[in-house]
């Protein structure tokens, strides 16, 4: 009797064990490849069970790592600055259009909403940043285009402000002589920490994962983000080899464990997200469901 009752549960668990395995295996595979000894890898291919375990790919990466460290630096800088500015600008725009007594509320809401319905496409967008503002090949090109403020985030935040901040709080603060800016920074933002955390998290992920702006706007290797450097490395491992070695390079290349270094690069690019995931996972789920239900 208990077996019969429990067996559907058992089957569902079995399904999810398989599903989880299918999710994790590819990630595990590149990790195992990255710690495989190069020669045995060339013999056996990418395997979950390396014949000889060897960390020389990581040793190599961190020994000759100026390109990677630089790319990490670019990504961290862009992520921090982009998220902070983006969050502030999003809130600054979302708050007035959440106020029922603000006369341009409807017009500005539509102004945002329309950007979600129609866009000019890649070409004019590209020309605006390269020919009008001329920010290609600068770090601004990694921060500003498309990622700074999104219509969807503005509308989610506006909904949060309208539904959770009682107008009476704002009114009474204003009667006590607080100015609009003070109300915004000291009351509204403080009451909105959950939505700020969630949207900030989504922005952080978007900046961290971004390779598209690099692909479109960046030629200078010093400004490659980590994702774009990874993208380049997949087709051409030489990108990460130290540029200055010159004549030594071909000699060096012969001794570099290229196949395993490539996968070690992927692990290094993937690592921070996987390691931080248990801590931010809860907020992501919250944000997704709020976005889907209310947005």
């Amino acid at each position, binding site marked *: 009797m208990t077996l019969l009752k429990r067996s559907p549960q058992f089957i569902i668990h079995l399904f999810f064990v398989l599903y989880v395995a299918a999710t994790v295996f590819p990630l595990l595979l590149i990790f195992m490849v990255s710690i495989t000894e190069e020669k045995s890898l060339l013999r*056996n*291919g990418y395997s979950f069970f390396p014949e000889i375990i060897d960390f020389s790919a990581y040793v190599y990466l961190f020994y000759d790592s100026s390109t990677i460290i630089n790319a990490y630096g670019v990504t961290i800088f862009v992520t921090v600055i982009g998220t902070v500015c983006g969050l502030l600008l999003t809130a600054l725009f979302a708050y007035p259009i959440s106020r029922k007594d603000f006369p341009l509320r409807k017009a500005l809401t539509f102004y945002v909403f329309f950007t979600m319905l129609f866009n000019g496409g*890649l070409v004019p967008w590209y020309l605006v940043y390269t020919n009008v503002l001329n920010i290609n090949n600068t770090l601004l090109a990694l921060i500003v285009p498309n990622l700074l403020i999104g219509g969807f985030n503005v509308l989610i935040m506006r909904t949060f402000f309208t539904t959770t901040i009682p107008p009476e709080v704002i009114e009474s603060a204003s009667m006590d002589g607080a100015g609009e800016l003070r109300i915004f920074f000291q009351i509204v933002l403080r009451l909105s920490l959950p939505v700020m955390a969630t949207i900030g998290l989504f922005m952080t992920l978007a900046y961290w994962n971004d390779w598209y702006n690099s692909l479109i706007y960046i030629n200078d290797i010093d400004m490659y983000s980590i994702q774009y450097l990874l993208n380049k490395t997949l087709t051409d491992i030489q990108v990460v080899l130290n540029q200055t070695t010159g004549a030594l390079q071909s000699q060096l290349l012969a001794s570099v464990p290229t196949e395993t270094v490539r996968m070690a690069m992927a692990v290094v690019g993937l690592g921070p997200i996987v390691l931080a995931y248990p801590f931010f996972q809860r907020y992501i789920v919250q944000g997704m469901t709020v976005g889907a239900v209310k947005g």
Partner: protein
Amino acid sequence: MQGTRYDCSIVNNDLERCILKAIMTGNSRASFWKKLRKHHILLLMTVPGILYFLINNYLPMFGIIIAFKDLNYAQGILGSEWVGFKNFEFLFRTDRAYLITRNTVLYNALFILINVILGVGVSILLNELKKKLMSRFYQSIILLPYLLSAVIVSYLAFSFLSVEYGFINKLILEPLGINAITWYSEPKYWPYILTIVNVWKSVGYFSIIYLAAIVGIDTEYYEAATLDGASKWQQVRSITVPLLMPVIMIMTLLQVGKIFNADFGLFYQVPMNSGALMSTTDVIDTYVYRALMQMGDVGMASAAGLYQSVLGFLVIFGVNYIVRKINSDHALF
């Protein structure tokens, strides 16, 4: 209020009320400016956002005129010569236009269908689990791929598909005595590969959205059904799925609205921009990118881009119209 005029002629017998109304509307216009002046700080707060959307979204919208021009950088966008629909003519004369449209729409339609079926299925199974801690553990693992960048996903695919050392060729096909497959130059496999990658990446996401909706269903329905002796399967079929329908509709229609926009990361990164695969991997977004950045054909790229934007815009309106017909509460606008 703006634009309403009050014609206070003799024909109108209620002259007094009419004048009163006119004065009031005048007042409301004046009070609009007064209110705006009172809220000038709020207005100031929106200025950075207004400028950002102007630069990032509205300026490019006006830039669609490039599609009707023979762009010459020396003369600038406004100074370049008008060529009417010539760019579109060139685009539609080749069979590319048909190919990229077909690929974009078919892939998206397939993805939408699979994501709905698997997403709902997985969410129902997640909800059935009695051990909630395990359910939460499964959820967080299956969501993870959704958060990885397309570049990382292309590495994962490469580790399976690499011709020389890939897992499939070396550890599955070789022991079976089957010749290695050159995955990155044989288009016929890619509809399957891209679909599998898409399922791997996004089913977790959809199942968590649907799960949130299932959790919101009143448990009394299930209690009553259990009392009446309904089986689990019957409960799923006649309670869960019908009550989930509004969310399924919204999620699906949101995706249908974007049916002409392909996931650039998936179609550009995972096939590694391989020329040999174009017949099954080229979509509108990758075509526009290549036309602009690799072929330098601004005219063709902007024509294809505008073609995509206009179709997308029409589809959104069409979808919204249909939703409004069915249930106006769920309409987007």
